[in-house]
């Protein structure tokens, strides 16, 4: 094992490896700093670019983007009170008041330190936890694995979004799309309509680009021309001072707590960074010596939100890499990238690709000091991104989506697929149907069907096998419990806002 770790480290420590992480972090912070461009969207658009690189470069590039967007989202939150990404919403509460007091620079620096520390913490937890968890998962047979996938899907469908019905509906849509292609048991063609490109199933990359990026651009296209063409109010870092060391010291405990909360929440499929940030913020306010400062411009508030937000980055990869169950949309996209690179997330990942995985982990860790350095040196540049007008941004992103979908297989059919997936995603967003269960179910459907059929083959078609084997029965029971608890009130219930 030590030999594999050393081999992985030597694979990682090349100038190309470091350059790709640095590029990923730079692109991520830049995209995160543009209001309305989410990390999920940035990763979805840039996934096809990673296919031109070997896994030890392509995956760290995407992980760098993932990291960068989480911190980048705090910049517009602090400067113009508009969160660059949804999880950065809690950062607005104290970041913007600080900027109004002329302390924008130090608030961004606090966000940077808290993000870097939170991210580093969760990366370490990921590295320490991944191998033992994968070893446990290796003991699962198809019966246990199907039950585990079903439980994961149930959790994601029930927890994501505001309505259980809509979550389950989204997951079922994902399964239906995932069923297109050749059935592995019988060799039958399912819903290919004679199109050769569909024999291998619906392309993951065009689907991701359509659902996450094009749909978002269509939402933006709803705005009036006046709104689109108007440059945002000037956001700048004029004046201000570097973050006083005392403030950082005062927030150390908050950052640690935020990192723990972010890592804990991030490791649970279907939760995500937005929940973690608000939980961390609430906990920090409750335990602070100066709770009255929260909401008025508290550095602790910024630290609480940002540490938890970034701690999710590493933690949501724990179920993804060990069990093959992506915890949220970002993890689902990253899982797609792993699969496209020939690395199959799940129990066998570490056994089959140990040096590559250690190389990826090394670069994942090194991405944190790189982010710190870039944040320090380039914050004024990133702050300029906040002011890009939407009338230029939307066409540029749409073009990038179209090119990204095309280069997946150099096939125009993929571009049309991405466009129609975008329109479909637009309508789903309007109806508040969450996208994450759809994509995760789409990715998991073939594996789940394979496990189901293998389990039924071994049991001679007896379905009770899922309830008679203890681990499988445990997962099935947990899935049922979660579903029942979620629909306790009424299956169609939608909690009210606020």
């Amino acid at each position, binding site marked *: 094992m030590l030999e594999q770790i050393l081999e992985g480290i030597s694979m990682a420590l090349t100038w190309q490896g470091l350059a790709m992480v640095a590029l990923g972090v730079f692109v991520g912070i830049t995209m995160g700093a543009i209001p309305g461009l989410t990390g999920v969207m940035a990763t979805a658009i840039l996934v096809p670019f990673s296919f031109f690189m070997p896994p030890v470069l392509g995956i760290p590039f995407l992980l760098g983007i993932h990291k960068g967007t989480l911190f980048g989202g705090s910049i517009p939150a602090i400067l113009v009170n508009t969160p660059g990404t949804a999880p950065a919403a809690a950062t607005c509460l104290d970041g913007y008041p600080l900027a109004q007091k002329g302390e924008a620079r130090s608030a961004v620096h606090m966000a940077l330190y808290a993000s870097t520390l939170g991210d580093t913490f969760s990366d370490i937890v990921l590295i320490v936890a991944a191998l033992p968890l994968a070893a446990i998962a290796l003991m699962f047979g198809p019966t246990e694995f199907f039950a585990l996938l079903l439980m994961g899907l149930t959790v994601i469908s029930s927890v994501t979004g505001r309505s259980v019905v809509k979550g389950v509906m989204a997951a079922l849509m994902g*399964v239906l799309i995932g069923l297109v292609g050749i059935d592995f048991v019988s060799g039958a063609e*399912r819903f290919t309509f004679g199109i050769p490109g569909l024999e291998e199933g619906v392309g993951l990359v065009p689907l991701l680009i359509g659902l996450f990026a094009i749909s978002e651009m269509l939402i933006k296209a709803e705005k009036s021309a006046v709104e689109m063409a108007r440059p945002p109010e000037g956001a700048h870092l004029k004046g201000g001072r570097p973050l006083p060391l005392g403030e950082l010291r005062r927030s150390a405990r908050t950052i640690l707590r935020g990192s723990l909360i972010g890592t804990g929440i991030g490791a649970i499929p279907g939760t995500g960074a937005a929940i973690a940030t608000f939980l961390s913020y609430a906990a920090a306010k409750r335990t602070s010596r100066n709770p009255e400062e929260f909401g008025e411009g508290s550095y602790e508030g910024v630290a609480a939100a940002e540490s938890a937000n970034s701690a999710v980055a590493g933690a949501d990869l724990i179920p993804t890499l060990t069990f093959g169950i992506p915890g949220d949309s970002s993890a689902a996209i990253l899982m797609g990238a792993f699969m496209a690179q020939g690395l199959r997330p799940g129990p066998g990942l570490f056994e089959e690709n140990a040096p590559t995985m250690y190389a990826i982990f090394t670069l994942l860790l090194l991405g944190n000091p790189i982010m710190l350095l870039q944040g320090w040196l380039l914050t004024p540049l990133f702050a300029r991104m906040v002011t890009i007008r939407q009338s230029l941004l939307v066409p*540029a992103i749409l073009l990038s989506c179209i090119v990204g979908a095309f280069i997946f297989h150099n096939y125009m059919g993929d571009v049309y697929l991405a466009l129609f997936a975008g*329109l479909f995603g637009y309508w789903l967003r309007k109806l508040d149907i969450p996208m994450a269960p759809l994509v995760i179910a789409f990715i998991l459907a073939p594996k789940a069907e394979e496990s189901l059929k293998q389990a039924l083959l071994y049991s001679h078609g007896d379905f009770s096998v899922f309830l008679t084997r203890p681990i499988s029965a445990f997962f099935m029971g947990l899935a049922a419990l979660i579903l029942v608890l979620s629909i306790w009130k009424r299956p169609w219930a939608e909690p009210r806002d606020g």
Partner: protein
Amino acid sequence: MQKTVFGVRKAAVSTGLFFLLFSLVYYFYLIPQYIVFSLPPEGISRTSLQPHFLPRIVIVLFALMSIFLIVGALRQQEEEREAVVGARALFQVGVVFALSCVYVYAQELVGFSVSTPFFLAVLIMFFGTRDWRYVVPFSVLFPLGINYFFWFGLQVILPEGTLW
């Protein structure tokens, strides 16, 4: 204030009905017609291993969820005034989508380099920026940069068009 095309309730009910109809078509038409066996069906001993086993279960659940969606929407308080999408917004989304489709088709005919500057210029102006100091450089230089990056950086040839 723009005219509401779809209120929250109307949108959920019509989508639920559409999904329900889709489920029926899927179950009674798509499954029998578009699952093409490579082995004779009787060669696969168990129903649970047949290729239409999972699609049938999933679509039945989907139909059930569609009914829940409709019921849930009908039981909601009257919220018709809350718009899912207004007439102007729907028009703008339609235009952007149609322009994108036309652009992709144009790429097949005249190639990336010729079609992209027009696409970008039209979209930028549609979104309200009419200042040529922005429109011209952006719509010319951005595609040039992309083309250069793909050609030299990734050795990928973007569509060159079938007309020439």
